[in-house]
C-alpha cells in the first residue's frame, strides 16, 4: 500500500464507531484495521483520494480524545476535496456531524466548511474555486501573504 508522506493520527474513545462515522459522514474508506482483540484499535488507515487518516483508541497515557479534555484539542485536520463540497457538508450533517461553519467562499479562493465529529475532533474541508497568487491573496485578505512556489 502506498503511504503518503504525512498522515494525521487521531485518538478516539471508540475508534470503531469513529471509523464508521468517517465513512458515513465524509465518504472515507477503512482500508486497514488492526484490532487488539479486546475491542480496541491499535492502528487503522481510513483512505480518501489516496491519502490516509489513522484512527486509534481507546487512548492512554499522553494521548486523549477531546471528550477526555472538555472538548479541547491540540490540532485539527483539513481535507482538500476535488469537488462537491456542498453535498459533502449535507452528507456530514445527515451522519451527525456538528457543522460549525457552513460552506462559504473564502477570500483566498477556496470554498470551506468546518465541523466537529462525535468525539469533538475538528475537521475542515476545502475546495479550490480559484488559484490565487500571494499578491492576490494579500489584496483579498488584507493580510501579508508570503508564498513559495
Amino acid at each position: 500500500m502506498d503511504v503518503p508522506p504525512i498522515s494525521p493520527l487521531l485518538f478516539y474513545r471508540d475508534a470503531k464507531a469513529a471509523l464508521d462515522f468517517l465513512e458515513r459522514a465524509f465518504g472515507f474508506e477503512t482500508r486497514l484495521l488492526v484490532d487488539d482483540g479486546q475491542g480496541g484499535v491499535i492502528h487503522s488507515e481510513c483512505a480518501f483520494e489516496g491519502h490516509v487518516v489513522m484512527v486509534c483508541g481507546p487512548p492512554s497515557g499522553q494521548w486523549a480524545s477531546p471528550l477526555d479534555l472538555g472538548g479541547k484539542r491540540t490540532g485539527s485536520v483539513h481535507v482538500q476535496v476535488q469537488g462537491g463540497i456542498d453535498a459533502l457538508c449535507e452528507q456530514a450533517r445527515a451522519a451527525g456531524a456538528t457543522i460549525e461553519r457552513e460552506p462559504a467562499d473564502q477570500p483566498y479562493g477556496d470554498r470551506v466548511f468546518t465541523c466537529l465529529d462525535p468525539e469533538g475532533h475538528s475537521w475542515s474541508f476545502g475546495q479550490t474555486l480559484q488559484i490565487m497568487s500571494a499578491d492576490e491573496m494579500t489584496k483579498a485578505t488584507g493580510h501579508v501573504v508570503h508564498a513559495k512556489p
Partner: protein
Amino acid sequence: MAAKTGFQPSVIYQDPKAAIRWLEAAFGFELAIYIEDDAGGFVHCQMRYGGALISVGQEWDEPFKSPLKLGGKNTQLTSINIASDVDAHCALARAAGAVIIAEPETQFYGDRSYRCRDPEGHYWSVSQTVEEVTREAAEERAPGLKITGWV
C-alpha cells in the same frame, strides 16, 4: 501557490514562529505559505514536506490548545513517512532538541520507526518501510492482533 491535496494536519502552538524554525531544523520542513498581519503578528502558516502540507496554528480559538496547556496531553499526532535513513532523521531531530520517546526500531509490520516529542509537547512518528511483510507474517509475529484489509 502550494499544491493542496489530501489530509493536512494542523498543529497548534503557543509560539508558532518558534515552532516553524524548529520544524525546519528538526524535520527539514519548508515554509510554503506564511501569513502575517500588518503589525507582523502571526496569522497562518503552511509547511511542506515531500509534497504534503501541514498547518502550523496558534491558539486562535478556545478549544484549540498547545499540549503545554493540557498537561502534555495530545488528541492527535502526525506521522511522517520517509523514503530512507530513519536513523539519520532521528539524529537530526535529537540534535534540534526533540525528546526521543521511542528510539528507531524495526517493527513487526516492516517499518523502521521512531517517535518523538517537540518543544511544546506534540508527538511525531517517523517511519521508513524496510521490509514488505504479509498479513500472515505480521499476525504470526504479533499474536493476539486481528488484522483486516492488509493487502
